[in-house]
């Protein structure tokens, strides 16, 4: 297996405060990788650096050997990386169908076209319908996204992320704030959609992490203190100390 995503010597300062303090990490092609760590460890910041929302202070990010450090988010997305957000980030006034459709448009080559109708583009329509079906939102197709329940909005968040048919999917706390049954549904959905793809997710729910992840990285105060299989992470002394037993939750 080769590295799909490679972080080397990654640093991020906000003023004098160092949030990410030299992260080296390789994500392999086809794996499901979870990033865990206490609050304020810099997990979301790391996501923002990789996806282009923040510029890095130092270090490099490579996606399939191509440098993506400090590129614009839309350029990184076009290279095959798509992400979701911790706080639901959808298009509230547009319908569920339109939300997913907007995610599909660029990948299907529609770009900024203003000389043809969306409804006539069979490929776009089919792909949107497929994602709608796959994420279980077909019966809410014409509901304005802002009116959906919280769990449905989280599912829509993932559905939009899938639109660009990315090689690498990054999910930021996909099950945050969900009930137990909703979480189980979300785990099944994530397992299904990350089939044949590479997944990185930040997650607080250890049940979800150990259920889904092939490998886990532990981020503490801006540094990766361990990267390993779930079983070995559970047994790791340093991780135990950093978490003070909260891993058994």
């Amino acid at each position, binding site marked *: 297996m080769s590295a799909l995503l490679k972080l080397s010597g990654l640093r991020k300062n906000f003023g004098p405060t160092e949030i990410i303090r030299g992260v080296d990490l390789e994500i392999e092609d086809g794996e499901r990788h979870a990033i865990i760590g206490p609050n304020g460890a810099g997990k979301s910041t790391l996501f923002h650096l990789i*996806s282009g*929302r923040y510029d890095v202070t130092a270090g490099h990010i490579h996606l399939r050997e191509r440098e993506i450090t400090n590129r*614009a*988010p*839309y350029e990184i*997305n*076009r290279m095959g990386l*798509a*992400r979701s*957000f911790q706080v639901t*980030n*959808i*298009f*509230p*006034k*547009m319908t569920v169908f*339109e939300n997913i*459709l*907007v*995610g599909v*448009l*660029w*990948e299907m080559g*529609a*770009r*900024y*076209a*203003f*000389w*043809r*109708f*969306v*409804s006539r*583009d069979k490929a*776009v329509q089919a792909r949107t319908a497929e994602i709608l079906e796959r994420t279980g939102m077909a019966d809410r197709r014409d509901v304005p996204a802002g009116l959906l329940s919280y769990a449905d909005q989280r599912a829509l968040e993932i559905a*939009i*992320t899938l*639109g*660009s048919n990315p090689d690498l999917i990054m999910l930021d706390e996909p099950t945050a704030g969900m009930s137990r049954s909703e979480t189980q549904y979300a785990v099944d959905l994530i397992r299904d959609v990350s089939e044949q793809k590479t997944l990185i997710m930040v997650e607080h729910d250890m049940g979800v992490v150990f259920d889904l992840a092939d490998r886990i990285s532990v981020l503490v105060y801006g540094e990766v203190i361990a990267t390993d299989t779930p079983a070995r992470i559970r047994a790791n002394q340093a991780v135990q100390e950093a978490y003070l037993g909260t891993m058994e939750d």
Partner: protein
Amino acid sequence: MTRGIRLFGPWALLALLMLGLPTLFDSSFALTVLSLMGVFIIFSCAYNMLLGQGGLLSFGHAVYFGIAGYCTIHLINAVEDEAIWFPLTLLPLIGGLVGLVLGVLIGFVSTRRAGTTFAMISLGFGELFTAMTLVLLTFFNGEDGVQGNRVYEPRPLGISFGPEIEVYYLIAIWTFIATAAMYALTRTPFGRVSNAVRDNPERLEFIGYSTHRVRWLAFALSSFFAGLAGALHAINYEHVGFETVGVQTSGLVLFMTYIGGIGSFLGPIVGAVLISYLNASLSDLTEAWFLYLGLVFVLTVMFAPAGLAGLITMHEPLMRVDRSLLRRLALPYLAAIATTLLIAAGAIGLIEMVYHLTSDLAFDSKTTVFWIELDTEAPWPWIGFAVLLGAGLLAARRTYPQVSRIWDATVAEARARLLG
């Protein structure tokens, strides 16, 4: 079949209206107003491509309207001088191109940011071009503006475009083409992405789109149609003045679009028709016309942010559940409308008398309000209007809450029926 009717029905109706209106209203004044409506329907729809569809609030969109107008009138004069020849019927396309070129150039800079930054830059460019009209005299001719004569040879099918009716039909055809084209744009990938950049620009960046590109394109296309409208405006009046570029015209199109309703395609059309009409008929009748327009705008922003079209479309879900639910709202609505008219009558009476008292143009203390001659120095008219206003306000304290109470109850019942 039904789908075809729903899609093409409104357009057929619009075409019929445009064809038939001049036979119903054939006075010179009516034709002028109808032509004006056409021009501002195009301009408002173009403006709503930015505001309603793309979420960009511009305070200077008259630049593209006005400059295109100046270019058109110069072109007409060049044809008159036999320097070049160009058919009058296609001049709006040239106006559109002028708008497009300006929109591409200025939009590249101004659409880097949305929100306050964009609004400020649009205001800045508006002021810049207004200043230029008073400085670059060879092109803009200062406060006098530029005149032209749209009647030139050859005359296709004997149409000279001299009579107002012929210009009306030219404007009507272009209005139909332009609104149909702008409606079509809302159904394209660009249209969808434009809505997305309005709703959530940050998210759009992470699904492959440059928000700058999307806004830039929206701005350029909107400027094209604004320029097209500006060319028709120039043809209609055979004169372009500095005010067509300035903040007054920019404000007018904002008012039309917003009062009509930015949430639907029909809204700006409703706004343009209504305000063009009021502008033409009331501005001769009262000096306070812009005060009233401003008041209506403020009230719309505060109480009906979806505009007139929004007030109508909010009843659509109720219609779908059960038409009879609407009957319940009829009486409260009538009561609220009656009190509103009472308040308006009182307020308008007082405002008109104040305007008359402070006006330098008044010969004596007599003025005509609501077709009645009144003496502004007598106490009775003042007391009369104050009583109307007071009674209206008192009644409103009952009728307005009643409307919202019955509205809420009706919506709740509709929802219960829908789910149950």
